[in-house]
């Protein structure tokens, strides 16, 4: 009998402990969307001091699962919801609604002295997976290609892997960098280097390449002519209401889209 009591006590304590939260909005999911969401939450809460917005990472899958389970109000995602996730949501009576909040374009950059003006997606994949190792194989100088990549914890790494490498693994000798700025810095100093960065990080010290004949720009990303681009989402359960609606409206507003731009992503407005 004492064990039954222990069990009941445990569950009761957990119930109190886990539900001792006030009312607030919880955003969870993509690490790519995380900086946009954090900055937007910060600015939004300044204009609305009573609002309590908590932003967590964890990855797109985690955010969507959390939304389906009712553990967050907004799921941040750097990919569209998967059919299996949609099935799960429908089975649980959830009405998932998508909100596009920005576009993410990834520019491939080389040292300004590099003769190469553009590459195909396949050539990029071959470089990053180790099939091509010298610029001469692409019509450039006889020079070893120094491959620079973001580290595997970054959303840009994940996006590049999906959009440019068909999820194949980056060659093991690639130089991994912790930030877009670090990638720019290494490529700018290394004549045989190739790297990739968010669109907002292109600087005169590096040269952005055409991909499949298209230069990366806000316009080519928005019109989907540039191939290494994707929409970024916030998903809600049903049409947003109350504070959730106010926050989604804010991030889609001109002011919110300015924050998107500042973070190196492509704003919709």
């Amino acid at each position, binding site marked *: 009998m004492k*064990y*039954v009591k*222990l*069990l009941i006590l*445990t*569950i009761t304590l*957990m119930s109190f402990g*886990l539900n001792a939260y006030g009312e607030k909005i919880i955003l*969870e999911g993509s690490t790519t969307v995380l900086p946009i969401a954090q900055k937007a939450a910060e600015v939004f809460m300044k204009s609305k001091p009573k609002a309590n917005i908590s932003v*967590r*990472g*964890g*990855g797109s899958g985690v955010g969507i699962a*959390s939304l389906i*389970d*009712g*553990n967050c109000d907004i799921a941040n995602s750097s990919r*569209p*919801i998967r*059919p299996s996730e*949609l*099935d799960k949501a*429908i*089975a*649980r*009576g959830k*009405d*998932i*609604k*998508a*909100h*596009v909040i920005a*576009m993410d374009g990834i520019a491939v950059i080389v040292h300004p002295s590099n003769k190469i003006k553009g590459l195909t997606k396949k050539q990029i994949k071959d470089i990053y997976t180790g099939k091509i190792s010298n610029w001469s194989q692409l019509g450039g100088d006889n020079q070893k290609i120094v491959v620079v990549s973001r580290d*595997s*914890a970054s959303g840009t790494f994940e996006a590049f892997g999906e959009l440019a490498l068909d999820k194949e*693994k980056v060659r*093991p*000798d690639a130089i991994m960098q912790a930030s877009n700025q670090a990638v720019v810095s290494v490529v700018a100093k290394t004549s045989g280097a190739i790297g990739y960065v968010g669109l907002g990080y292109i600087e005169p010290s590096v040269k952005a390449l055409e991909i499949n004949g298209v230069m990366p720009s806000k*316009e080519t990303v*928005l*019109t*989907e002519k540039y191939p290494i681009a994707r*929409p970024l*989402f916030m998903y809600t359960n049903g049409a947003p209401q109350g504070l959730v609606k106010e926050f989604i409206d804010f991030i889609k507003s001109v002011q919110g*889209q300015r924050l998107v731009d500042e973070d190196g992503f*492509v*704003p*919709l*407005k």
Partner: protein
Amino acid sequence: MKFIRIILIGFVWFMFVNFISYAGEVDILLQKLVEKGILTPGEAQEIKTETQEQIKKEIAQGKYSNLPQWLQNISLKGDLRTRYQFRHEKADNNYSKDTHIGRVRMRLGLDTKVNEQIKAGIGIATNSGGDPRSTNISFGDKNSGHSSKMEIRLDYAYAKYSALSWLDIVGGKMLLSDVVWEPVDLIWDTDITPEGAVFALNKKLGSHLDGFMNNAVLFGTADTSTNADPIMLYMVQPGLKYKFNDAISLKSGFSFYSWQNVKNKAYPTDSWYKSSNTKSGTSWVYDYTLITPALELSINEPFKAIGLNVEKLKLFGEYVNNVHISDNNTGFGLGFQLGSDKINKFGDWQCKYIYAMLGKDAILDVTPDSDRYHGKTGMRSHEGIFSFGLGKNTSLGVDVYRSWSIIDTRKAPETVIQVDWNLKF
């Protein structure tokens, strides 16, 4: 302008819904509207993508509404395994026994959703005489033989009630994974489907931290022919999973088991219990109160830095102490797993090693892995497993055990080699 935009969204939506095959033409329409300056490229992208997502949802919902509810909610799964098994047993210098057998295992499970909060699962499996720790049947049964027909029994039948987003209540004859988390099969044979009720709490405690707590009340026996109290097992297992980053995570659990009414209870007479080390005469000698901490460290792509492409490394361990007594009362299992996380396709591979030791009275010997020294306690054992994907959902596995007694002065070593062909469906 906002009004025009609303009308356009409605129009595009109408086009998508009614003329999905003309989706390409909708793209052109949006493009024209951008060219004429009515929409910005960003607005067009927003309308297009959000509409596509809405359509995807409508199609998924349509799929559900076009089928009868009971059919939509049912999912079937199963597996078939054929096995060659060699066993070498050596009791002393003058006696040894070598056996070669063929075995088959078939399991078929059905899950269905009763309503939004309740799920039910039913599974059947091959079995021999009700053995709780094995779903194998040996070819050429020694009693009937000559390709006699085999036995199928109810493997599990349970209902799961998701009372809250963080609380599941499970009742019935359940899957072991719904009852307890165990990184190594030291205490529980994975074929066991416990009977009783479980309150499973799962909660995200932070962006990197998840908590869980399994609380179980399980029946050991329930003999209604006498006044005797039934053998019961009460278990509480709190645990945490911490994700350091995308590559490394650590899961831990601390279980407390209390077996009640075991001491002096008559030992079961079924054939699979006869080789027990925890009985004396015809009865059990002790009660069992166990504490078992367990840990599992998972590392994705552990050798990436040196250019080796290995998907996952797991290091795990579990310790058990029967605090009810002071001799021969501890045990532990340690091991690692390297390679693919799951064997799903050709070329996937995984190797695993486990070292296990169980003192004679560390646990009640009705639960440990039946392949490891016949499921007895008072032993130590090395186990090595190698699995290789032969194609989609089919794999080959080789499992080798080398075990010894730690209570018999002759040690009575035993070697078991199992070669499995696995099919999942």
